């Protein structure tokens, strides 16, 4: 009698092999270079894709099961938070501006990251990195969705986030994160992986997620905090992938080292410039602070990043030169950024305000070398003027950096009283920059950055008004027309927090929740 022998289940390792590399095949009637057309032009040489060590052993079926479980938990917490009017438990309504900044500045980048990893994954001939990219691409689109879902609950009550994606593609300061990611996804697959997978996800991500998520936790925003915890295990995987990518490329060929070094230099700086928004969020926008920007930079970059670059030295990679300039800027970055948004509060989708006495004391304690001398006199003047009904609204458009697209608000390295101006003449046109690293990035690839969609120039070209606007009509108000184009309502979505509907509503609603009125 034939015995029916139960088939042995595959072990984890075999199962992983079958479900990833086992899915790959050698093409027989198409040439490799036709199937993977983007793999050679960046100059990166890969000799053996099988040398790729998978940094984590996750198969698609396990991914699916694991993620759906996590999301079920996330959505049940979000439901409970919403049903209990959790929004009234945040420290104060100023906090909500952090959420507005996040959903219009960061969440759309998650979506673009999804596209970027899908593209990079498609282009890699190795099955290992392809599967890893696929999973990260799915993570990124899930993060975009869960962030939007978590934050959409605030949109029911507060202003400025009703059309965040429309804003992301148009509002002047949002061109900074947008152009950063556009730069990355228009690069080749290897540069994309170094830019986003390594420089952003590995080197800088702790400076983005830790401040936002711990900021949410400190300020009673359980929705955003829960999203953050839910994404954390994915982020850990992204960091592992980013590091594996860089080591793999460097080990494959010594000729790859200078190319990778240039990308690391470029993308550390590009990423750092985007983190300007995080710096001001940490030092000004969280009613209950977690730590200062300067402290965060010292812990997450100077200490952790320092150890990382020591580790990479054996591959011939060194710490990017720009970090010396970043160290000089850490006493100034957040103050210069907040001043910028205070200047242009009439054209933003969130509110700004002057720090109160206690907050000023915190700032001068955290920034003993700079705050009292340079920034306190400015703030005290603004505060006095606002008290007299003369709040400062700067209505003249600023000069922008051709590379990072931030107004020229940064000061000379070593002299915080002088604006840093840099310029280059290229093919009979002049281009301006906020810093030496931004100038260098332009000079390396001028043809890419001459195309930059600089919001100020676009406004002056007449491209940022609603269709049918006649800028030559008598009494034409350009700011009003630009706000319409942004789909922002003057007096509601913009201006100072003190005169905002958000402030008024939050006080009234919290009053109803905590008092017998």
């Amino acid at each position: 009698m034939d015995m029916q022998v139960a088939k042995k289940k595959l072990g984890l390792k075999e199962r992983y092999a079958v479900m990833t590399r086992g899915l790959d095949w050698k093409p027989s009637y198409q040439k490799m270079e036709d199937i993977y057309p983007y793999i050679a032009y960046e100059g990166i040489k890969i000799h053996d894709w099988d040398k790729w060590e998978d940094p984590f052993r996750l198969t698609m079926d396990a991914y699916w099961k694991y993620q759906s479980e996590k999301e079920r938990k996330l959505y049940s917490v979000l439901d409970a938070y919403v049903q209990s009017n959790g929004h009234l438990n945040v420290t104060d309504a100023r906090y909500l501006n952090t959420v507005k900044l996040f959903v219009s500045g960061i969440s759309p980048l998650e979506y673009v990251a999804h596209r970027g990893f899908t593209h990079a994954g498609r282009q890699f001939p190795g099955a290992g990195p392809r599967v890893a990219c696929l999973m990260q691409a799915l993570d990124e689109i899930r993060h975009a969705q869960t962030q939007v879902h978590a934050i959409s609950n605030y949109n029911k009550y507060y202003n400025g986030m009703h059309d965040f994606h429309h804003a992301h593609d148009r509002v002047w300061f949002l061109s900074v994160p947008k152009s950063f990611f556009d730069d990355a996804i228009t690069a080749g697959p290897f540069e994309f992986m170094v830019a986003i997978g390594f420089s952003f996800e590995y080197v800088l991500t702790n400076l983005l997620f830790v401040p936002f998520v711990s900021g949410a936790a400190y300020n009673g925003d359980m929705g955003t905090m829960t999203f953050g915890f839910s994404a954390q295990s994915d982020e850990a995987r992204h960091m592992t992938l980013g590091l594996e990518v860089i080591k793999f490329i460097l080990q494959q060929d010594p000729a790859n080292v200078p190319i990778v070094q240039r990308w690391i230099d470029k993308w550390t700086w590009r990423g750092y410039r985007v983190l300007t928004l995080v710096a001001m969020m940490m030092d000004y926008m969280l009613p209950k602070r977690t730590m200062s920007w300067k402290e965060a930079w010292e812990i997450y970059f100077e200490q952790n990043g320092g150890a990382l670059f020591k580790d990479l030295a054996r591959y011939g990679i060194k710490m990017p030169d720009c970090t010396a300039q970043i160290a000089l800027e850490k006493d100034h970055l957040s103050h210069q950024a907040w001043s910028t948004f205070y200047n242009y509060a009439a054209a933003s989708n969130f509110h700004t305000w002057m720090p109160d006495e206690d907050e000023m004391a915190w700032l001068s304690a955290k920034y003993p070398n700079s705050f009292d001398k340079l920034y306190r006199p400015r703030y005290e003047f603004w505060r006095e003027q606002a008290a007299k009904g003369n709040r400062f609204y700067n209505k003249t458009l600023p000069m922008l950096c051709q590379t990072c697209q931030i107004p020229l608000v940064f000061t000379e390295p070593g002299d915080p009283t002088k604006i840093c101006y840099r310029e280059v003449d290229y093919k009979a046109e002049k281009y301006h920059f906020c810093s030496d690293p931004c100038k260098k990035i332009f000079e390396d690839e001028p043809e890419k950055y001459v195309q930059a969609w600089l919001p100020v120039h676009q406004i002056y070209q007449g491209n940022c008004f609603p269709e049918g606007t006649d800028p030559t009509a008598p009494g034409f108000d350009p700011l009003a027309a630009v706000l319409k184009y942004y789909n922002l309502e003057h007096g509601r979505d913009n201006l100072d927090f003190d005169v905002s509907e958000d402030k008024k509503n939050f006080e009234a609603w919290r009053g109803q929740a905590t008092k017998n009125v």
Partner: protein
Amino acid sequence: MAVAALKEYQFAPADTMDKFHGAQLLYIGWEDHLMFCAPFAFPFPPTMRFGDIITGVLPGAYGYHPDFAQIDWKNVYWFKSGTPWTPDFNKSLAENGLKHKDVIRFHTPGLHGIKGSCN
């Protein structure tokens, strides 16, 4: 260096003067007054008289600052692309040699912002 690309990579610059409806861009910065977070960008016709910027435009841009009313324009030092430069107030931007996307700054002796803090 050139952009690494699969095909020829040449695109027109986005901000050439022909796109500004007859205007040219001029960037202006006021030294030691960082309350204005960045230099300003203005679209001006090349035929505009330089002095009209001082009397007609800058008051709207910088007038909020208590130092602005005290500026003695005869004693102001100018810089173009960082090097000393002397404009003729009665001549046009073009006659003053100002081209599209030039950057000028002015330094106001004795006026260094709120309580001398460069703000």
